[in-house]
């Protein structure tokens, strides 16, 4: 019985908690990708760098607040800086839309041209981030590091295994739930949200009904900037901020969005968790959990790790490929145009 509990706690500590946090971060990122796909109808390669830009703004404000001696008690100061970072990120995406994407939208170019344009935007944003904050790792979390530390948990329960929950992880889950709830309320209940969904479903019909496309596009960008900054900041608080890592997150984002069904917000969230849980379970060394949960004589000698952690991209990619081959519209019916 004790062994079973220990196994459960070890599983929660090394698999469930990290995967929940990572899944929420992926879900927020994939939501941004999927919304751009749904409304603007292209795969935005610059999304990872938009995220890096927003996070960078948050970090700069965090440092400013720290230098003024402002802190947020046990919570990271970055939470206070978040609204300011979001506004800066919104300014960036609105500027790029105004000076880059609007031109091509007016010309009604093929989606693939927009993808190539987004590569250019990716270079510019990436360059800006590196120019301003540099390419190095930045840690900006402060306040309490743990909600529950492994030692406290052991003392509380008397188990051999500890369950540690980092503030960043708990925060990720809370913020993600609030953000997603607000987003769905907005999309389903407000006039603007409904017009966005209408525009996404059928552009011509929406235009005929008098929906202002420029407003829809603008609101989409604002939401995307918010989601990207949130995702980036939470990822940075949980792990650390590095421009190149953020660029690389593009792949799991797309995998999550496609697995869920491109253009489908709920799908993006489910996809995010599917990708996160598969990445963590496949790259986790199961030795500890197995040792607790099977009779002693069966205990494994090796690490029982299916793939080394460096192959986590391969996991999201294989899931992506399987979904594309067997269910091209994703788990939920997304767009397959």
């Amino acid at each position, binding site marked *: 019985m004790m062994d079973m509990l220990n196994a459960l706690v070890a599983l929660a500590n090394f698999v469930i908690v990290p995967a929940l946090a990572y899944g929420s971060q992926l879900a927020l990122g994939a939501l941004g990708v999927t919304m751009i796909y749904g409304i603007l109808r292209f795969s935005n390669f610059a999304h990872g760098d938009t995220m890096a830009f927003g996070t960078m703004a948050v970090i700069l404000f965090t440092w400013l607040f720290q230098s003024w001696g402002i802190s947020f008690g046990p919570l990271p100061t970055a939470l206070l800086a978040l609204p300011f970072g979001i506004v800066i990120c919104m300014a960036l995406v609105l500027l790029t839309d105004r000076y880059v994407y609007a031109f091509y939208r007016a010309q009604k170019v093929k*989606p693939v041209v927009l993808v190539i344009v987004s590569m250019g935007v*990716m270079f510019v944003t990436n360059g800006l981030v590196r120019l301003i904050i*540099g390419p190095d790792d930045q840690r900006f979390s402060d306040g309490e590091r743990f909600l529950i530390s492994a030692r406290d948990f052991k003392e509380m329960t008397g188990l051999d295994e500890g369950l540690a929950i980092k503030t960043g992880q708990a925060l990720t889950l809370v913020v993600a739930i609030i953000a997603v709830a607000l987003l769905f309320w907005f999309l389903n209940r407000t006039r603007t949200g409904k017009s966005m969904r209408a525009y996404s479903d059928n552009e011509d019909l929406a235009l005929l009904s008098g929906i202002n496309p420029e407003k829809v596009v603008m609101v989409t960008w604002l939401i995307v900037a918010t989601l990207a900054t949130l995702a980036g900041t939470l990822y940075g608080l949980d792990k650390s901020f590095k421009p190149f890592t953020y*660029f690389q997150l593009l792949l799991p984002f797309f995998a999550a969005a496609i697995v869920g069904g491109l253009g489908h917000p709920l799908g993006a969230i489910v996809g995010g968790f599917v990708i996160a849980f598969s990445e963590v379970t496949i790259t986790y060394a199961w030795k500890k959990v197995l040792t607790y949960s099977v009779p002693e004589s069966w205990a494994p000698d090796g690490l029982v790790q299916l793939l080394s952690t460096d192959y986590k991209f391969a996991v999201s990619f294989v899931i992506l490929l399987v979904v594309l081959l067997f269910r091209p519209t994703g788990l939920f019916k997304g767009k397959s145009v």
Partner: protein
Amino acid sequence: MTLRDASLFALVAVLLVVTGMVQSWNLALQVLNMGLISAIMALGVNLQWGFAGLFNVGVMGFVALGGLAVALTAMPPVAEAWQAGGTGIVAAMITALVTIAAAVQVWRRRLPRRGWLVAAILVAGFMLYRYFFDPARDAIEDVNPALQGNLGGLGLPVLMAWPLGGVLAAGAAWLIGKTALGLRSDYLAIATLGIAEIILAVMKNEDWLARGVKNVIGIPSPLPSAIELQESAGFAAQFADPVTASTVTVKLGYALLFAAVLIVLLILMQLALRSPWGRMVRAIRDNEVAAEAMGKDVTRRHLQIFVLGSAICGLAGAMMTTLDGQLVPSTYQPLRFTFLIWVMVIVGGSGNNFGAVLGGMLIWFLWVQVEPVGQWLVGLLTSGLPEGAFRDHLLNSAAYMRLFTMGVLMLVVLRFSPRGLIPER
């Protein structure tokens, strides 16, 4: 080629000559050599995107495979490692192949509950694979780990690696194409992006293959090295400054080799573009449905072009690793080896081979030169500022001007000259 095109190429030549005179001839030739290689990569991407409209953003992966081919061809084999784990590795590879083949066969038979059957085969195959593979890998990596710890190569002449690099990349491209080419453009892009990351992950982690992040160094060179030239009595006596003369000579030799490859490829590509095959491919790109209705096999042509274009990228990757004399997997970055090549093709002019070559040379020149120019500019602009952390930060970050510049350049070209400097004709 019109007068305008020729003058654009002349401009690149002038830029290189100015670099040679103002900075150094060594640098100018270095830029030229990498420019030639970049031009070949751009030709490969142009074949896929410009001719056939295939959206491949996994260029980095194929370039890296070309580099891997050099290490696997030119390095001497490590006999001890083969003895220690050769059989295990071979057995593991055979297991993997048999497993995948069996899974595909079972899936095609449309048996009842085939999903579970395939899953069972894959799981069993994976366990058997790990049973053979793990001890063999450990044994190999224990053989003289400071210098080798891998199976080594075939010990063939290094120039053989160039076509083999193409073949290796082509093989990978065939596998990818078979699975992913049916997807529409955005999905193909994401799929290739993922493949490139996976190829890199394999190269970084499979130490038994090519030492992973421990790098393969001392790859034999096809030309005599600068030091050998300096030591040969006849050479040193001819020049006042034998050190510079020898390095320049070696670089010139590489430039000639690369230029020869580029010219052959360019001629082949021009012939292909003008041939009925080229017209068909462009017809498929412009209207797939119509081409299919005319009886053209769209899927096969796409696969063919995907494989050929990737092979060209692999060839270029092999040439680059030969030039460097070492294989360093951590230097392969998507911005540099995938997206920069795309900038070259878009700026040069997709669908036009001369455009791709021009783009490759010009963008590479800018990529190298923006950094010193940016540093100089920032230095000039900040010269009024007091010494301190802020000024240092600005000076340090000037190096990242190049990403910014490339992005702006690409956006400007896309906006005002969307068909590139030398448009398709």
